[in-house]
């Protein structure tokens, strides 16, 4: 190949990737355009039923959130639910992963069956539990609890019951995700540190604390990352069960933005709330990704 040919070849190589990316980039632009438009709407008083009131209001929609009582409670529920769900699911998921990592009879079958809740549409999962969580003794869950002396719980009608039911439903669907990733991580761990610990005479708990958990930390941070992102913006389960009630006890920022935009059609305000939620998600993912990088570097 002479120089001229090579130069021609290189020039084509330089523009080829963009040609290959073109269809995807067109679709991507089609997604980013509505988002940019929505960001602009968040700075306006867009109210679908009152088009004549449309004005550019700068950051009023954002500033006004500070004095909006629903925003404070929605923010609190968003963050509180995320912390509770992630702690519960990662704690239980780690226990299940460690349990299945020991040679349990029927492990393959349990693994395969655990995929089923994981792949269910979340809204269908919510409807299944809604049937089981009927508030009277006709509900199978209350019937089962009656055997251990628990009085019928008003699952979706009481504040505590509603929060608990959403936590339970979300955990049923997502616990397998945590358990399966951590189980995969456990099975990929090297053998040498365990042999060294055995030579040193370390007990089971010491091995878990000083060998397994540090080695597993990149996987733990990864599941915390994914579960945090999904818990911050949980919507389907709440929509299908409590719709944010009772008394807004289960209204998170996502449900609040939905109510503003699709029940009261205040698109500007709804979009401002959506962007606040987006910013929270971005900040959390940035922090967790840094943690993940550090964890994977330290174990290599």
């Amino acid at each position, binding site marked *: 190949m002479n120089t001229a040919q090579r130069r021609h070849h290189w020039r084509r190589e330089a523009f080829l990737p963009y040609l*290959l990316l073109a269809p*995807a980039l067109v679709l991507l632009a089609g997604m980013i355009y509505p988002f940019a438009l929505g960001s602009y709407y968040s700075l306006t008083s867009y109210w679908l039923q009152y088009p004549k009131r449309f004005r550019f209001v700068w950051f009023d929609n954002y500033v006004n959130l500070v004095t909006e009582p629903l925003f404070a409670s929605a923010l609190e529920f968003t963050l509180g639910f995320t912390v509770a769900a992630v702690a519960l699911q990662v704690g239980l998921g780690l226990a299940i992963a460690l349990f299945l990592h020991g040679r349990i009879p029927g492990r393959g079958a349990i693994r395969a069956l655990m995929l089923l809740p994981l792949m269910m549409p979340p809204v269908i999962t919510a409807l*299944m539990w809604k049937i089981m969580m009927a508030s009277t003794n006709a509900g199978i869950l209350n019937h089962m609890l009656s055997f251990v002396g628990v009085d019928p719980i008003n699952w979706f009608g009481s504040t505590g019951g509603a929060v608990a039911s959403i936590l339970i439903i979300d955990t049923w669907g997502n616990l397998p995700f945590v358990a399966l990733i951590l189980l995969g991580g456990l099975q990929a761990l090297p053998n040498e540190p365990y042999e060294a610990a055995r030579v040193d005479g370390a007990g089971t708990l010491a091995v878990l604390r000083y060998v397994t958990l540090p080695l597993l930390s990149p996987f733990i941070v990864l599941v915390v990352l994914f579960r945090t992102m999904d818990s911050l913006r949980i919507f389907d389960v709440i929509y299908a069960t409590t719709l944010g009630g009772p008394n807004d006890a289960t209204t998170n920022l996502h449900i609040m933005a939905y109510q503003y935009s699709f029940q009261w059609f205040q698109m500007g305000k709804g979009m401002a709330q959506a962007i606040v939620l987006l910013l929270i998600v971005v900040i959390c993912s940035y922090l967790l990704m840094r943690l993940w990088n550090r964890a994977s570097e330290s174990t290599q």
Partner: protein
Amino acid sequence: MSAQTPSHQHLVRNVAIALAAALLLLWTVFPFFWILLTSLKGPGDMLSVPPKFVFSPTLDNYAALVMGEQRGQYSSTRPDFPLFFLNSIIISVGAVALSIVAGIPAAYALARFDFPLKSGLAFVLMSFRFVPFIAFVIPLYLLYQRLGLYNTHAGLIFAYQLITLPFTIWMLRSFFQEIPLEIQEAAKIDGCSWLGVLTKVILPLSMPGISVTVILGFIFCWNAFNYPLMLAGRQTFPVTVGAIQFISYEQVLWGQMAAATIVAALPQLVLSLMVQKYIVRGLTMGAVK
């Protein structure tokens, strides 16, 4: 004999393990079992106290689902479930097809070429996995009303690209990267152009990966709820939105709703078992293999 003998300890340990395994199985499987039972109950057994495990099963709920008929007087609000099922298939197949057509060349570019902004682009695609849907659905709703895309299959197929396109590109990229570079170089020496490398080397070798990506993409579309909730109407509802139509102001049709959840879940439960080795990889967009 003391209780501390090794064989006794062994027995206690085995019983504890068996109990824990049984508890885990019960927690995982019981909801499916119970909903299946509920879907086979007639109206008399539905709300009995205590709940019945033994009853004479009936297929009435499924029949009502298929016929689109609803017991009682509120026939004007009856959900048309066969139509919802068809909608789910049309939208999911369309969305996955569009993503594969646009995603294969894009994934090839990201896997095999170096160019400025490459890692930035990959990151932007990844970030779609974490975006709250409402930030897109509000402007899409307003645009669709204007453009006539509201309540159409085409509009939904485009909106679903937010779910499937970033996923497809990331998955295919990770599968393409697994093909050894030497094979590609050998094909180039044999005179293959970039197109030849793609069609004669990359695509045939990554066919299993492409199938997995298609099936998982289909499952994610099938599971989608919030985009169609806002962008679809009664003519284009998929099964996920269709299933909540059994809750109306007058009554909750528990039996039909149970039957609907079974029917809505069945296709993706079967598909999940087909691709079970790859599900974790798919849910983390290739981050965990």
